[in-house]
């Protein structure tokens, strides 16, 4: 299951004239401010430990100055660490000599930049093909490939334009196409969408999600925008003053913030949009496996509830209410459970975003069933749990 692609351990980065010389003080626990005041060195990154799995979108989040752009530049050694190891597929890239490092950058990783990093003197097509040109791929092949990727990002027909003739969103699509064109498995995205306006940004996010469903790349995405992080990330790491303060899935970060800093961060997030049904639902309180109305009523009494979910070997069948069952039992307690007795509600999908199920949840008096694609009952979602998650500020 676990297949780590990148493993970073004990990574430190100190900026200054003699970074190595101040490392003992850093290890002794000197704070960033003290270090700057006493030695004139800036502590960029402190004891970073990360493992990134194959095929996941790993978001590194932090405010400006938190060291996130410094961190991402360590993955392809645009910046060398002061201490620590960076392993990519088991190879410590710190050991690579120059020639091999170039090969590594050509084939293993590609990068998308905040301000696009396009070459103004090259046409869009040449920009997209740049990675292949560096690899000395012949012209016809690289241009054909670049054309295909330009079409994928929706920029067919712009091949001969220059970057300055495109809008910001289009330029970043070119940046994305350039990154995809080398077929590198790992994609580094340094605040790739931060310079775009909100509408274009969300469009680009959709496009990235769509592409990722097809391509299954390992993506390391840097952002200062928590909504973006929650939307894209399979896992999120939060960076503050060069230190990792929390790592986890979006739901973990939202529901269990590790420090007051993270808490303050997640306070303003639109949780209805960030959380899925799965993360909020409770286990089903009353499963009814009976076949007749009388047995069902008896089982429901044992759960002490006014409702229950009928399940059989084929999975979830429907919602039963005590009232309905009692009425039906008066006529025919030995009658079989059938569609007439089940309540007329649709089940929720565990992957749905909370926002989309709020109306249904609020309208019904009983918790709605959460049913997987295969038809299994996974849990229940009551309006109380929705209200709790959306309304309550996070507890310490």
């Amino acid at each position: 299951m676990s297949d780590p692609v990148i493993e970073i351990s004990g990574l430190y980065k100190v900026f200054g004239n003699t970074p190595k010389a101040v490392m003992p003080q850093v290890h002794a626990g000197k704070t960033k401010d003290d270090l700057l005041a006493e030695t004139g060195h800036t502590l960029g990154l402190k004891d970073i430990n990360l493992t990134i799995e194959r095929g996941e979108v790993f978001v590194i989040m932090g405010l400006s100055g938190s060291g996130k752009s410094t961190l991402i530049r360590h993955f392809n050694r645009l910046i060398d660490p002061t201490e620590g190891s960076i392993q990519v597929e088991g190879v410590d890239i710190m050991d690579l000599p120059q020639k091999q490092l170039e090969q590594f950058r050509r084939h293993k990783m590609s990068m998308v930049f905040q301000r696009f990093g396009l070459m103004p003197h090259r046409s869009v097509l040449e920009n997209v093909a740049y990675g292949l040109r560096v690899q000395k791929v012949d012209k016809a092949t690289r241009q054909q490939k670049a054309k295909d990727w330009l079409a994928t990002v929706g920029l067919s027909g712009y091949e001969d334009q220059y970057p300055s003739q495109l809008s910001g969103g289009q330029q970043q699509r070119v940046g994305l196409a350039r990154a995809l064109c080398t077929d590198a498995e790992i994609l580094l995205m340094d605040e790739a969408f931060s310079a775009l306006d909100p509408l274009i940004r969300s469009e680009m996010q959709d496009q990235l999600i769509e592409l990722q469903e097809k391509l299954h790349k390992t993506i390391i995405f840097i952002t200062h925008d928590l909504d973006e992080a929650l939307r894209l990330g399979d896992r999120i790491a939060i960076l503050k003053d060069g230190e990792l303060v929390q790592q986890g899935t979006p739901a973990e970060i939202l529901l269990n913030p590790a420090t007051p800093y993270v808490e303050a961060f997640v306070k303003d997030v639109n949780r209805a949009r960030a959380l899925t049904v799965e993360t909020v639902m409770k286990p089903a309180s009353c499963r009814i496996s009976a076949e007749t109305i009388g047995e069902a009523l008896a089982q429901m009494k044992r759960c002490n509830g006014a409702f229950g979910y009928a399940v059989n070997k084929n999975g979830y069948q429907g919602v039963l209410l005590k009232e309905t069952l009692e009425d039906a039992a008066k006529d025919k307690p030995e009658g079989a459970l059938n569609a007439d007795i089940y309540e007329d509600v649709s089940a929720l999908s565990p992957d749905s975003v909370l926002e989309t199920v709020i109306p249904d949840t609020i309208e019904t008096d009983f918790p709605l069933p959460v049913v997987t694609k295969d038809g299994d009952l996974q849990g229940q979602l009551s309006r109380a749990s929705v209200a709790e998650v959306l309304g309550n500020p996070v507890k310490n």
Partner: protein
Amino acid sequence: MAEHSWLTDFPAMDRSDLVAIRKTLDGAYRNFSREYGDMIEGFFDPLLSFLIWFEKLLLASPWWAVLLVITALVYLATRSALMSGATVIAFLLIGYFGMWDNTMRTMSIILVCTLVSIGVGIPIGIAMARSDRVQAIMTPILDIMQTMPAFVYLIPVVMLLGIGKIPGVIAVVIYAIPPVIRLTNLGIRLVDKEVMEAATAYGASAFQRLYQVQLPLALPTIMAGINQTIMMSLAMVVIASMIGVKGLGQPVLKSITNQYFTMGLLNGLAIVVLAIIFDRVSQAYAKRTQKHLGDNSHV
């Protein structure tokens, strides 16, 4: 010394000591030039033969053929009929006033000086851009080259190589090369950091970064440097004529000594015309190679 106080008179070095220093340095340099002069002259021989060949080519070809080639080059570089027409008229006037041969000589020496300046200057500029230490060493040297009066460095050059074309070329190049060096350095240093990072991130080697990113992006700045270099070498032709470089400078020099106002003015104007043509053509060419910069005009 005793009667003078160091408070009223500057405590200068003894006159005899100064003479001794001068004698030693002059003597050492004279010995050096006697010893190695021929060798250094030999080193410059290929340049000299090229210069002579080119000058002969311009002088021996029929004037209309030379004019045709020049006009064609101007048109290719600028794509402007107006500029080409103006060039034809300017050269016809120059010929009509009897300055054709001297103009050809000046053009050939300017061309050689510009080529030498580019060939030597751009690599030095690249080295400066790549290393702060090289920049720290080169900057004061460039300052000296630009401010030291040309006559001062003419002396050792003439002592070493005598009077002639090569010393002239060296003097012109020393004076005219700093802009191309400085602007190559500046242009490379100004290349957008993120574009450089992108090139590195895609695995470009140092050589690929230089040829695919730095030089193309620095080109407008480098072209401005080359343009300045051409202008400055034209400004040097009169001084170069003092050490035997033939061309438009010599009649000007003659005019100064004999007070021939009109002759000086005509030859001076011919230099100006050459300068304007070189300037406009090189700028138009630089602009046309930068089509990606788009139309930056504002209303």
